[in-house]
């Protein structure tokens, strides 16, 4: 025990001197090694073994983290660390107690505190947050989906003040958005960008169109993941909210994209569905209901609403949504809440799409703590419209308690408020999305399973 403490103290000294992850000899010179190794040579006590299985996984797959060879009934902290593409550091940790054999199993044991508590096999991922001292309002999104997300999992001794101790063991695990063999193809439609992800093999495959929200740009990660589940998926660049204003363009671009995907030689044309989040879902619901040519096999709206554009143009959407912009408010942290802006629209049928016109299965996902838009109420309204049209059998509503607006693929961290571009001139505000971490993580995990089942049912199985 004494020797173990000695050795750990030496390791702490070495660690403080050197850079994390560097080979000791490069940083510290020979003298420290001699001392360290002499201590090591004397140490007879067991050394901890940390394992993560599978060590390489898709981002929606669970892993098992376990530690063996600890002293019995030892307080330890299991810690995760990730450096994002933006160079921010994110971390999570749980406090555990080893059993009589000196084993900790994150899948089976309870965490007694940290960034998550209780029995949480994936807490080391979904409860990640920026390390102390980081900028405010960060969001973790993988933009290069062809390279994996690297997460360092480390076990430290102790609970309070665990960071002061040398790590007992550490491994690196990879989390991938693409399965091996998935192809990534850049496409353009009417000058707008899209990325098509095709599963390995000759095909043909069911297809999915994937559209994100009003932040603009082209996040590819959900499309890459869907392709890893066997769907030829096209992620489409969406307009930033600001860009809608004044644009007399209609949504023809999205109609052409659906056509293009249906006619792709590796896509089964009568097995193509659509999925959208937020503004993306708004467009999809509008098109599926109103467009004579936009006919997906099924439609998934994540935190969407059935907002009508009176003239079918983007500008029309903008006017509908922000007619009551004066109802936006700030919370105690000066984060922007748009929830009430949307509430006004619920009472005004002239600003709403009659989704009763939709003839395909519809999955509506929302979070009851959505602060950016009253999406659960819109979901209820849409379900009501479907019932009135005699299409109750087509609609499924999933309203997750205490989840927020940004319902992402599972095990992604939760973002209650992040920096968001609005108001022109590249001005960013902190937008309140809502949600509380644990229920939001549950919503992400559960909704993803149901989204995959829904797609499989309607694109792989039926007819």
């Amino acid at each position, binding site marked *: 025990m004494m020797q173990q403490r000695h050795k750990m103290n030496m390791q702490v000294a070495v660690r403080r001197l050197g850079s994390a992850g560097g080979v000791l*000899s490069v940083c510290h010179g020979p003298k420290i090694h001699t001392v360290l190794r002499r201590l090591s040579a004397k140490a007879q006590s067991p*050394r901890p073994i940390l394992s993560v299985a599978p060590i390489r996984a898709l981002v929606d797959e669970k892993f098992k983290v376990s530690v063996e060879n600890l002293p019995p009934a030892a307080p330890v902290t299991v810690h995760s660390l990730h450096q994002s593409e933006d160079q921010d550091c994110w971390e999570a940790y749980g406090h555990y107690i080893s059993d009589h054999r000196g084993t900790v199993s994150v899948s089976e044991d309870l965490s007694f505190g940290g960034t998550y508590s209780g029995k949480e096999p994936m807490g080391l991922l979904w409860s990640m947050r920026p390390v102390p001292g980081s900028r405010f309002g960060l969001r973790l999104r993988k933009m290069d989906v062809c390279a994996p997300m690297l997460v360092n999992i480390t076990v430290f001794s102790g609970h309070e003040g665990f960071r002061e101790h040398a790590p007992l063991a550490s491994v690196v695990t990879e989390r*991938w958005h693409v399965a*091996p063999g998935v192809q990534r193809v850049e496409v353009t439609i009417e000058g707008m960008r899209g990325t098509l992800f095709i599963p390995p093999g000759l095909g043909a495959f069911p297809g999915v169109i994937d559209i994100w929200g009003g932040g603009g740009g082209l996040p590819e990660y959900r499309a890459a993941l869907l392709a890893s589940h066997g769907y030829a998926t096209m992620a489409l660049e969406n307009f930033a909210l600001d860009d809608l204003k004044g644009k007399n363009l209609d949504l023809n671009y999205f109609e052409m994209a659906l056509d293009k995907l249906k006619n792709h030689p590796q896509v*089964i044309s*009568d*097995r193509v569905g659509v999925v959208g989040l937020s503004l993306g879902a708004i467009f999809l619901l509008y098109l599926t209901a109103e467009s004579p040519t936009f006919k997906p096999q099924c439609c998934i709206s994540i935190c969407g609403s059935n907002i009508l554009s009176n003239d079918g143009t983007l500008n029309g959407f903008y006017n509908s949504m922000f007619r009551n912009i004066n109802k936006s408010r700030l919370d105690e942290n000066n984060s922007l809440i748009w929830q009430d802006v949307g509430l006004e629209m619920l009472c005004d049928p002239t600003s709403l799409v009659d989704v009763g016109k939709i003839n395909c299965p519809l999955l509506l996902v929302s979070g009851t703590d959505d602060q950016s838009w009253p999406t659960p109420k819109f979901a209820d309204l849409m379900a009501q419209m479907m019932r009135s049209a005699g299409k109750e059998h087509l609609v499924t509503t999933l309203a997750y308690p205490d989840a927020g607006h940004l319902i992402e693929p599972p095990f992604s961290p939760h973002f209650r408020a992040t920096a968001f571009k609005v108001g022109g001139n590249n001005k960013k505000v902190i937008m309140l999305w809502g949600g509380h971490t644990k229920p939001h993580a549950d919503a992400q995990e559960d909704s993803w399973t149901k989204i995959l089942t829904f797609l*499989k049912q309607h694109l792989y199985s039926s007819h």
Partner: protein
Amino acid sequence: MEGKKRPVKLSVHPSRGLVDEKFTVLVQNVPPGFQLTVHALHQCEDGHSWHAFGHYTADSTGAVNVAEDLSLGGTYSGVEQMGLLWSLRPVPGSKPGLRLRKMNVQTPMEVTVSVFRGHQTEGFEDQGPLVSVVVERWYMAPGVCRIPVTEGGLTATLFLPSASGLFPGILDLWGGGGRLVEYRAALLASRGFASLALDYMTPKISLETGQMVENEYFETAFRVLQQHPQVLSSRMAIVGLSLGSSVAFQLMIYSQVIKLRCAVCISGSHVQPAGGSVKQTLDYLSRNSGNTCFNEKNELICRDLVLPIPTDPKLKADVGQLRCPLLLVVGEDDQNWAVSESAVDMKQMMEQAGNSHLLTVLSYPNAGHLIEPPYSPHTRSSNFRSSVDNSFVVLKTLWGGETVEHSRAQEDAWRKILTFFRENLYGRGSALVSNL
């Protein structure tokens, strides 16, 4: 493209696994009772194609789970979760005598898993599958560092489990075929052991001088590994296969420099000039070359080279002097070395010396000589560059083993080898060995 029927769904989890991890192959969305073939195809680094396949019938939900369902035939049968890998064989029409080995461990082995309609046995390349996925099998876990080593005249590669941290060290010795074979060391590093793969038959220094290495070469390798700042000097081990085991016996018993916590000797024999060099061992075997023979397929059988087991103590490494735990892995159908007989003799020697409590023998019925990491295809015979009468000749050599049982042996032995290393190198371990 118009769809006429439901597309088949195929998934393999994990899609990127370590070579010793199991995977689950799941086929869904076929009609209930549908007959299908699950097929694996791999193109190795030499450009040869290897394949394996199993015949299945979908259940009432229209699914096949290779981990749980019966293969009714193919290259494997029964419930065989990993049959698609361990039963891989060269495709029809391939050159005879091939062996599947990954020499570049920095890239994964890629296997295409496909589903074909019906119970097919041939012509896979001529028809399109219903669906395919790509599976990666890795020898190196993320974070493992691969470091070429030339210090001290060595031809070696060091694998560290990660760029920081302290680890036990394992010296990894392959057999008489030479070359720098890295895959087992890479896998050991992925499991937490700093491992040094050492080329001792064809190292640069031998190619330059024309001389075989002496035992000092191995001591240098051991020292380089032990003194590495990330290696725990008191937690050292050796793993050897075939001639590598012979070398390991010499080192663990007669070297003044090498102190081990434990040793693993796979398909090895202690029969050799006691304390001798590799050259002396090979010369001794050469002198007995009259004991070799060929079978009806013209495959070389060398197992009698060390038989009968000598009684002269100068002709056997004195395992009675061992002070550290020794794990022997023995294939009872080994046609290349008389490992079963050697193991029996070693046990007797150790019982007489009073140290037999250090010995564990894992003896596998119908396993052959080449006991490799799990799910590697079984090689019953292959072309081997052999030392015959002091020159090197390529001969089709019989290693032995029956595929199913050899594959079970590989899987079981690896798990037990890892447990043995973990207990001795990560655990409390026994006293440091002294071979004075």
